[in-house]
């Protein structure tokens, strides 16, 4: 059986999603390669191929002499200055031009991480580098490849955002794409696989009981909910982080005691600043949970505070557990 050719390239990024990819388990990277019969033709940090071999491989894809089954791109694509792409040259050629050519011949194109999905941090603020995601710049469809882009399979770019992306999101998407089980109906409005991004980071957060009774932490390291005062965006962030968990299922952002910054969103980072305090009008946070009407939120949270058990009230503002009968 012919192997499945995979090419992974890095643009403007920190390499964090590669690091995360290496943390994959169930299946780990070795098992995934075996399961899906992958030939990782080149990855900038994992491959031994050097120099002209790599350029030759890239060119053989571009010319159609060799089939490119999956193009995986990590990192934003720099278009500046003045649309020359000179802010990032790859083999004496603007990186953006390589991506334009390779995406043309790829059967599937995957954007790994928020930067290649939506532009992420490199495109934040005034976007001085004119950085963009492959098919989105923030919430606006288009990006480098354009609104109408589809890869050979007929699918648009598959976005696997996250800063970094969870290794399961990357590996499972790859496995399912190759086996033909990930159709357009399984993608959401931002072209993310629904199976990972239709939940909220809030789901399965161990602070949920505190959330229900509006028993809130007042400073970091305390056990209470981080939503009311400390900036948590877990009720807006579309991901399954707290159900899936990270690093051998040992942690997550809110389990680590710091606020979710909604890194899987096309609006990350600028849509979620300031990250560490909750902005409010009066007593009402401006960042209400997705699809909870404001009036109901106000009514329910007022009642919840009144109903809050003393156990939660005390523990919410304590860094260690206080046992009350």
């Amino acid at each position, binding site marked *: 059986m012919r192997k499945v050719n995979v090419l992974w390239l*890095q643009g*403007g*990024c*920190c*390499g*964090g999603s*590669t*690091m*995360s990819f*290496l943390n994959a*388990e169930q299946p*780990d*990277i*070795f098992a995934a390669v075996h399961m899906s019969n992958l030939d990782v033709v080149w990855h*900038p*940090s*994992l*491959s*031994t191929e*050097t*120099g*002209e071999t*790599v*350029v030759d491989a890239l060119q053989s894809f571009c010319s159609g002499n060799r089939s490119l089954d999956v193009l995986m791109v990590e990192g934003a694509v*720099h278009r500046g*200055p003045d649309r020359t792409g*000179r802010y*990032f040259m*790859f*083999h*004496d050629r603007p990186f953006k031009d390589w991506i334009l050519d390779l995406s043309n011949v790829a059967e599937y194109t995957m954007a790994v991480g928020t930067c290649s999905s939506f532009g992420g*941090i*490199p495109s*934040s*603020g*005034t976007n*001085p*580098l004119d950085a963009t995601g492959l098919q989105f710049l923030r919430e606006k469809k288009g990006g480098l490849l354009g609104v109408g882009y589809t890869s050979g399979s007929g699918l648009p770019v598959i976005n696997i955002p996250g800063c*970094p992306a969870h290794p399961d999101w990357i590996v499972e998407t790859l496995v399912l794409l190759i086996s033909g089980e990930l159709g357009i109906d399984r993608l959401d409005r931002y072209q993310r696989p629904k199976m990972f991004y239709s939940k909220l980071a809030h789901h399965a957060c161990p602070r949920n009981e505190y959330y229900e009774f509006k028993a809130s932490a007042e*400073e*970091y*390291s305390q056990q209470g909910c981080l939503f009311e005062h400390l900036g948590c965006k877990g009720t807006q962030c579309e991901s399954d982080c707290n159900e899936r968990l*990270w*690093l*051998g299922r*040992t*942690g997550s*952002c*809110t389990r*680590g*005691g*710091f606020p979710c*910054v909604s890194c899987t969103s096309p609006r990350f*980072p600028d849509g979620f*600043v*300031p*990250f*560490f305090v909750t902005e409010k009008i009066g007593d009402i946070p401006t960042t209400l949970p997705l699809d909870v009407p404001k009036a109901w939120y106000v009514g329910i949270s007022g009642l919840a505070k009144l109903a809050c058990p003393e156990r939660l009230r005390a523990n919410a503002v304590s*860094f*260690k557990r206080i046992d009350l009968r």
Partner: protein
Amino acid sequence: MGDKLLTISPFNRVEGDLEIKVRLKDGEVVDAYASGVMFRGFEKLLRGRDPLDALVFTCRICGICSGSHSTAASNALRSALKIHMPPNAYLCRNVVMATETVMSHVTHFYAFFAVDFVNKRYSGMPTYKVLLERFASFSGRSYVKALRIRRKILEILGLFAGKWPHTLALQPGGTTRPVDRSEIVRAMGILTEFRSFIEESLLNCSLDRWLDNKSLTGVESWLGEDNHEDSDLGLFIRCGRERGLDRLGKGPCRFLSCGGYDLPDGTAWLKGGYFDGDLNPFDQTKITEHLKYSWFKGNGDAEHPENGTTEVDLDKVQAYSWAKAPRYDGRTAETGPLARMIVNQDPLAIDLVGCLGPNVFTRSLIRLHEAVKLVRQIGIWLQQIDPSQPFYARSEKVEEARGVGLTEAPRGILGHWITIEDYKIKNYQVITPSAWNLSPRGLDDTPGPVEQALIGTPVEDAENPIEVAHVIRSFDPCLFCTVHTLIGDDNARSFVLTTA
């Protein structure tokens, strides 16, 4: 710092976007140029933001030493906000930093450095078969084991920092993640599993037995004992010297460390210093950056990072890098594990450098030596945590302040400089370890440390310049480093030396 585009190199995934050009004459490198080929402009992205939000942005400068950037950023903020952390916070942060560093060192050795030993150049050597079986990419027995155990030790970060890379648990006032006794036991368990890998695969002996080695002679007799020469490290020591790695990649012979792993009593596990034959105390005000060969305006300038300017000048004729050139007291300096161990008077490092000099072999051996020391030390710090005491101290906003945050990342000295005005970031500057080691030429045209280490390197086969790869990788430019080597003048040839 005006309203300009900012540099790269400090904010660049320097580690990833580097191009090295070497000129060969009669089978020897006669000139070398290290260029940062990507402009990222992180600094511009930070200006005008809430100072604490720097924690979210700056850890994303690098996905491999993300926790080191968190440490440097939170140190810079802490010095600006003038807060004191509780003792537990020091210990937990050190556990996080040390875990990241150990993980990085082990990944570097197995996934990026040792892989070069099975380069086809060496296929005629008697040890080739065993090296292939051990270190080949994706199939070598030790390679696979190392990548699996790498994942395991990161579980400590799940417990202490929620996730990795890009945790926000390290804050100016301490850590957001208190741990209880149950979690300390779990972390000890993970560490013990990792330690078994070190003892059974890397060393074939206990940590303590390895750490008894205080000299080259000591290492040589260790090699002869039991089955030590069959361990991964033993194999490296034998093959490394057989292949002349102890004669490659000398560098500037000046070593810089800012010190790191601060302790609750005000001392640090690693002290800082500058060694140029004599050991001098470290003074961050002696750091400057030169712009002469960088695509930024300014030719004759040597700026302290706090006052740095970075205005793009694409037409500068002599420029070849998006990186600035950091200098200490006006001179180049090597930074990293070897520099740290020399500055801290580690007997093995001192003796190896004395007998063999700084080189590819010494640098790589001391990196692993430091990893072994850190594995032992993580266990000590874990035991010192007192779960009944706080982990975090609250801080107030500050209208105007300056802060400096320095730490030792896996690859060396990492500095963050912040200026706050009107409660916002006015200026933010970063100098990464790779900016030091891979810097371009400075004001006096002296090559940067890696450039200098490359000059004089013999290259047996211009089609496969593995010696050049050994030298560059001995500085651990980073996991992501894609190094382009351009050989020759007329028929220029481009090589990508990936890190694996």
